[in-house]
């Protein structure tokens, strides 16, 4: 399985080097990769349906508990087949859809990377590696949404999608670490046995909230749904593959995967029902106001994702069977509708619902696929959609509480989804063919065959539900912790109440479709409400945050060095001063241990004071610099008196160089101007004296602390024995702590390179400006 996961990545790497040979006619060959993987996973179907769980374990970073453990059970198998099967059709479709595109190879590279990541995600048994694959799907989605990188709207949508799904990824990481900590393992299959223990732990609510955050952002649940319509800026194959059939279902997968681990509480169920319920209805209503075909499909996709979350929330046997079937149903019909939309867009150049009609006359096979997909989405027998919808109603009716409310919500949503399906799958093909579309012709078979295959599959599975029952749905129900053998799918349940509800749905949907005409006016009307939409709120928040941070930055980073120094010093004085004088270990000045001052010291201190006074009142910069130099030399003398000749020598050289540096820098400045008035001078004096006092107090405090001489004694004793040196300071520098010195001279070098490049860069810029002028 590791090889299967890596294949996608290898394809992507291969295309980096060999891409230019695969842009032309050979491009379609890349579809063989998902086809091969599809057949590979198909070969497991017998073993999985007989209850076997196939595992493979590869150690990666065992120290972190991060292993590539792959598990193939019913749930994973369903997703792998969707990923590779729809992947195969999309890869083939793309070869015609983006034929001759300059970056076709790059596109396949991203798709391959996505496919590998998505397979890894659904196969991972290790929570941490699952997180890595989860992030990789977000990243490949980012590249694919922004594929038309010359369009600003595409780039913005890509960033928005990455921001939402990426922050969800953070939540997943946090949740995974927390869960791993509570469970003591990162293996999901081991966690299943620990479900009760996890549910009783203190962190349970937090874990669930974090995982919900990840699932809701990825699967576009309200209020995080807004990135998905924006993601429709991607080329249609991407919308089909990532943003309808597979990637957005990663959140659903996560919820299903953790149902047996975490799904035993009321909190889990209620939250999912509420969020899923709001999402499915809210998004379904939105479809009424869209005129862009992809917009309609985007919102109906969100609606179905909401329905899936809702079903997982119900959590009953029926509900989870319904969820499983609905994943198949939706992938089949929604992918078909997206591919058809792509064909329409490709051949006519528009996706505007109000402009399209009568296309059946020029592309009959596409129209048939559209019709089949639309009736599947509507849930008209004998399609698989009917099966799915019946199961949903059975699930809602089977609930002990709130059954009526939940059922009504589901019916309302289904009516709207029916409408959306008809708008996308039937409306463009019915009516009169406008003159401007008369020259429209059929696309390449690579483009029309995939939707036809998917649509026909939807019909066939509806007629023979046994095709998916035993091989896919039963193992899936098993793997989410329920009794899979009890599942029995059939198309005809007899004349019962649920059938009545289906009829009601159909009647409502038909009425809506014939009475409600989408128009630009309605789209504009609803966009007036955009200011309270989550998207606008988030964008407003981020814009506000940006202006706040620029304000804050301008306040602190105002480019005036004196302000920086004042800020740093004040901060230091207040913080250190506070911790020095507060609390139990408050500092007391203890002068007992101090020795008498000698004559030399008094003289040196006097020199220093005079020099400092000179600096403060100096009327020229050079004078001030010289004054500072005198202070430095006086300090050197102190070092000499306290027998630290090495320090004194170094300090002496450094001081000389500092003075030289100052002279060099200052000599270029204009004549001295007093820039500060009396008040700022007093303020500055206060700040300086504050720092001076603080440092003196710290020095006194250090003297009073008992000193641990073990280290310095060791150095003094061993300098000659171990390092054959008599100058302990130097031996420490070049031998005992030589690695430190090595790092320090590396830092010095970096600093010098920094100064050099900053100054030279500025020079070159000036020269350029001069040239331009």
């Amino acid at each position, binding site marked *: 399985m590791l090889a299967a996961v890596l294949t996608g990545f290898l394809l992507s790497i291969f295309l980096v080097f060999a891409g230019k040979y695969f842009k032309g006619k050979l491009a379609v060959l890349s579809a063989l990769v998902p086809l091969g993987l599809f057949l590979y996973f198909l070969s497991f179907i017998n073993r999985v349906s007989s209850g076997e769980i196939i595992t493979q374990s590869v150690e990666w970073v065992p120290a972190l508990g991060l292993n590539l453990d792959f598990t193939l059970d019913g749930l994973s198998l369903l997703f792998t087949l969707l990923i590779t099967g729809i992947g195969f059709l999309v890869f083939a479709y793309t070869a015609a859809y983006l034929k001759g595109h300059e970056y076709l190879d790059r596109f396949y590279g991203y798709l391959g990377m996505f496919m590998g990541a998505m397979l890894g995600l659904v196969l991972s048994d290790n929570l941490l590696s699952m997180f890595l694959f989860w992030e990789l799907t977000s990243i490949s989605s980012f590249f694919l949404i922004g594929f038309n990188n010359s369009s600003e709207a595409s780039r913005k949508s890509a960033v928005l999608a990455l921001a939402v799904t990426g922050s969800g990824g953070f939540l997943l990481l946090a949740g995974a670490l927390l869960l791993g900590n509570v469970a003591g393992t990162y293996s999901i299959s081991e966690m299943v046995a620990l479900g009760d223990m996890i549910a009783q732990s203190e962190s349970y609510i937090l874990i669930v909230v974090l995982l919900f955050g990840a699932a809701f952002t990825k699967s576009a649940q309200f209020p995080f749904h807004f990135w998905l319509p924006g993601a429709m800026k991607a080329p249609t194959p991407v919308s089909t593959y990532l943003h309808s059939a597979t990637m957005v279902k990663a959140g659903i997968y996560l919820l299903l995967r953790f149902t047996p681990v975490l799904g035993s509480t009321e909190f889990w169920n209620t939250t999912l029902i509420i969020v899923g319920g709001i999402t499915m209805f809210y998004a379904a209503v939105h479809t009424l106001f869209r005129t862009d075909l992809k917009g309609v499909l985007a919102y109906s996709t969100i609606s179905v994702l909401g329905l899936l979350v809702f079903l997982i929330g119900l959590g009953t046997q029926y509900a989870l069977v319904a969820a499983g079937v609905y994943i198949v149903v939706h992938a089949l019909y929604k992918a078909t509708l997206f591919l058809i939309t792509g064909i329409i867009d490709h051949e006519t150049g528009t996706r505007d619902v109000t402009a399209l009609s009568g296309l059946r006359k020029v592309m009959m096979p596409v129209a048939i696929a559209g019709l089949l997909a639309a009736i599947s989405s509507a849930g008209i027998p004998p399609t698989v959609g009917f099966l799915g919808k019946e199961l949903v109603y059975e699930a809602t009716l089977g609930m002990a509480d709130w059954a009526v409310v939940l059922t009504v919500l589901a019916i309302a949503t289904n009516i709207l989804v029916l409408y959306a399906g008809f708008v996308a799958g039937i409306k463009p093909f019915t009516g009169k063919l406008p003159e401007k579309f008369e020259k429209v012709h059929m696309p390449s078979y690579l483009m029309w065959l995939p939707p036809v295959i998917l649509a026909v599959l939807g019909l066939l599975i509806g007629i023979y539900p046994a095709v998916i029952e035993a091989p896919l749905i039963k193992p899936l129900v098993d793997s989410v912790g329920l009794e899979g053998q009890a599942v029995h799918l059939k198309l005809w349940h007899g004349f019962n109440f649920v059938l009545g509800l289906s009829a009601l749905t159909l009647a409502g949907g038909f009425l809506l479709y014939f009475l409600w005409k989408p128009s630009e006016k309605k789209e504009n009307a609803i966009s007036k409400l955009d200011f309270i939409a989550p998207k606008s709120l988030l964008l407003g928040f981020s814009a506000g945050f940006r202006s706040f941070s620029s304000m804050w930055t301008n306040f602190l980073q105002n480019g005036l060095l004196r302000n920086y120094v004042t800020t740093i010093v004040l901060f230091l004085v207040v913080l250190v001063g506070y911790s020095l004088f507060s609390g139990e270990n408050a500092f007391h000045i203890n002068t007992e241990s101090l020795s008498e001052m000698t004559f030399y010291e008094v003289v040196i201190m006097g020199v220093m004071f005079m020099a400092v006074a000179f600096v403060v009142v100096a009327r020229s910069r050079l004078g001030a610099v010289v004054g500072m130099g005198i202070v430095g030399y006086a300090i050197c003398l102190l070092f000499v008196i306290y027998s630290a*000749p*090495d320090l004194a*020598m*170094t300090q002496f*050289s*450094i001081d*000389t*160089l500092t003075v*030289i*540096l100052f002279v*060099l*820098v200052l*000599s*270029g400045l204009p004549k001295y101007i007093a820039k500060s008035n009396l008040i700022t001078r007093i303020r500055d004096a206060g700040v300086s004296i504050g720092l001076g006092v603080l440092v003196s107090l710290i020095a006194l405090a250090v003297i009073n602390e008992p000193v641990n001489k073990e280290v310095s004694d060791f150095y003094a004793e061993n300098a000659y024995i*171990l*390092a*054959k*040196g*008599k*100058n302990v*300071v*130097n*031996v420490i*520098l*070049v*031998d005992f702590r*030589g*690695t430190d*010195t*090595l790092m320090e*001279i*590396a830092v*010095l*070098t970096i*600093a*010098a*390179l920094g*100064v*050099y490049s900053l*100054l*030279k860069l*500025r*020079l070159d810029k000036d020269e350029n400006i001069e040239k331009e002028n």
Partner: protein
Amino acid sequence: MKTLILRTASNYMLPLLLVFSVFILLRGHYLPGGGFVGGLIAAIAFVLHAFANGLENTKGLLRIRPGVLMPIGLGLAFLSGLAPVLAVDEPFMTGLWWPDHVPVVGNLGSALFFDIGVYLVVIGVTLTIIFSISESD
């Protein structure tokens, strides 16, 4: 600042100071001194020369860009640390010592080469910074 006295003096001071800096570098293991302060003294010697004779003349005297000394010094210091790993399979930065007494230097060991590396880096860094700043006017 091109006074005759300073210029004449700096011409004699430069070699003297350079020799002095090497002296400081070499005695570092036994007496106050070492690569760091030696490097600073050598840098001061060149800066003094530049003050008196102009930057261009000093650069001409140096022949190489002072920046080149940085990688050379870093490499030397690193190699002297790496030598025990390669030569006798001891940990990084283990001191290696020549068994015999060497005139002028005393005991010859890998620490000396490390210190020479520090010396070169310090010269390179200081001169690079000071030359860049004085050129940017």
